């Protein structure tokens, strides 16, 4: 076999890994859409906000330091502590739960029974708000995020596969971070499925997802459920924020990862957790393979962004509700 064949396999594997990273972002969207029918535009900003809080807690930054300094002419920046990563994650989770609670209390509560497009718009407002708020709170400089996840190519794999393809082949390259992301994603999805199948709250969640009114009529509190769902989505955002933030540092651009999740959602369906995962994998593999086989050699590269959508479009033409979306039944 020629080296190029193995490189093709390598690109395929890396596509899968990239797909997992996209799925992590898409999961948050799916959770909220399932439970409340809201397309949450703010999901990307939530990931940024969560990562900002995590780094802030870890490095002992004083929230709103810049505002305080500018208003009172003080010079404060740090509390001078370094929080262990786990504790910081717990603190960030608390923040995200508080955030979910506030969103429910001040926004969603007032918009019950509105059309989806209006709820979508409200999340746009939320995204703007959090973008400014996050920057006010933690500053807009770039921050290093390190919670101890190893990065860099997996040497073991590389050395043990190098014999496959002769001299021109250097072994399969897979990033350790991606491997960890896959493990976390697997744990996350398993936990979510167990939670929704075997706990009382989980069953209530599914009931709400099926039918708001029926759920209300059997005594399930919509408001409590929404807080829970937004908290879980906040947690998923935190995981996505950690994974993407470890690679690029925490900065404004982190909120743009939401764009990477859009084709995944379209492909997998807005309402299916397995759909988000499998959609992610298809998009990841599809765009990487296209870039490898056609994009870079013939089209001058940087084709991934649009090809992801073209691929999703192709699937949708055959299955308009997405791969795992609920069948659309239309009645007049």
């Amino acid at each position: 076999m020629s080296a190029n064949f193995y490189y093709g396999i390598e690109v395929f594997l890396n596509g899968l890994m990239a797909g997992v990273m996209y799925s992590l972002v898409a999961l948050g969207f799916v959770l909220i859409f399932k439970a409340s029918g809201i397309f949450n535009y703010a999901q990307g900003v939530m990931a940024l906000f969560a990562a900002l809080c995590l780094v802030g807690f870890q490095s002992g930054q004083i929230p709103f330091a810049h505002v305080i300094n500018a208003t009172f002419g003080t010079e404060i920046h740090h509390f001078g502590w370094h929080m262990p990563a786990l504790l910081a994650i717990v603190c960030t989770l608390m923040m995200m739960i508080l955030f979910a609670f506030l969103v429910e209390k001040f926004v969603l509560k007032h918009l019950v029974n509105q059309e989806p497009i209006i709820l979508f718009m409200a999340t746009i407002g939320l995204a703007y708000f959090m973008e400014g708020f996050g920057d006010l709170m933690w500053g807009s400089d770039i921050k290093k995020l390190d919670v101890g996840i190893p990065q860099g190519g997996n040497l073991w794999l590389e050395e043990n596969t190098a014999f496959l393809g002769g001299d021109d082949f250097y072994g399969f390259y897979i990033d350790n971070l991606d491997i960890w992301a896959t493990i976390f994603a697997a744990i996350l999805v398993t936990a979510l499925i167990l939670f929704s199948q075997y706990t009382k709250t989980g069953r209530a969640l599914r009931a709400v997802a099926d039918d708001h009114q029926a759920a209300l009529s059997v005594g399930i509190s919509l408001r409590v459920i929404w807080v829970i769902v937004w908290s879980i989505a906040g947690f998923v955002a935190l995981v996505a924020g950690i994974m993407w933030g470890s690679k690029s540092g925490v900065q404004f651009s982190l909120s743009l990862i939401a764009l990477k999740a859009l084709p995944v959602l379209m492909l997998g369906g807005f309402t299916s957790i397995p759909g988000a995962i499998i959609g992610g994998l298809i998009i990841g593999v599809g765009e990487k393979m296209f870039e490898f086989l056609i994009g870079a050699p013939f089209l001058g590269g940087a084709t991934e962004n649009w090809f992801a959508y073209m691929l999703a479009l192709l699937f949708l033409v055959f299955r308009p509700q997405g791969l795992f979306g609920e069948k659309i039944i239309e009645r007049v």
Partner: protein
Amino acid sequence: MLYREAGDFKTSYAKDQQTFPILFDRWGYFIMLALAFIVGPMIINDYWLNAVVLPFLIYSIAALGLNILTGYCGQVSLGTGGFMAVGAYASYKLMTSFPDLNIAFVIILSGGVTALVGILFGLPSLRIKGFYLAVATLAAQFFLVWLFNKVPWFYNYSASGQISAPERTIFGYAISGANALPHISYLFCLTFVVILAWGARNLTRGANGRKWMAIRDMDIAAEIIGVNPLKTKLTAFAISSFYIGIAGALLFAVYLGAAEVGEAFGITKSFLVLFMIIIGGLGSIFGSFAGAAFMILMPVLLKNIFVGQMGWPTDLAAHMEFVIVGGLIMVFLILEPHGLAALWRTAKEKLRLWPFPH
């Protein structure tokens, strides 16, 4: 008091169905137009034109276009930025290939080119519906941006891929380029806005508009009563793209003067125009203007208050801008979920009865 319909009798169907059924409204509208055309050019200066008025006028056209597609025909589109890019690059190619062609025709032709591209990317709408349709338009967005960035023919093989608008004149006055006179470009854009808004209003209340709305409200039912979905959806895509293409061409040629596709026509632009019509009001001509005004003027206004008046550091002001714009969007939606246009309607209803509400 002044704003009422008592004594304003309608004696024909045409009169009953006119756009501004209330005399006061009608006069208000004509006076506003007169002010905009006569007083506007006299008082306009560079700052006002470039910072506030031009972007407002141009984005109003884009918002009108998107509103036709999304608000009236119910087809969600996130490809506005890409279609604006088509308009901009079409106008650039036309301007440089035919230096003698009048700029007004260039702009209109650019709209036509965009309409064709719009029809092409509208085809999947026959199969894919709702939020899922956004994927087709997103594909258009990313593909078009990539295309204009990649193929050197579109930017005349310049070193960096930037396009710059050469100077073009209308009736001997410069419209584009460095020596453009503020009041001339203002009048030029205003004319486009008025004609296009008038066109949109009449299209949407005619047979076409009714078909669009029938498709929006329930496409299967519309099909049963004899609305051809293929033709209806594609006309919506074509006309909407025509408007958006004109907006793109004006944005490039008259307002920015130079553009780079990824930066000027990226996905953020698509979202921006979508926000405008949702905030302003879906399916409303007035809403398109109100939404554009909100999204364009609010940041400028806030910046001037925070930095100009209160002397805050610019970064704090920029962050506060986000917080306040976001907060306002949420507050508006909670108070009036159907956008600024609905707020305006309610206000008018109240005014009709004022000062005796009972």
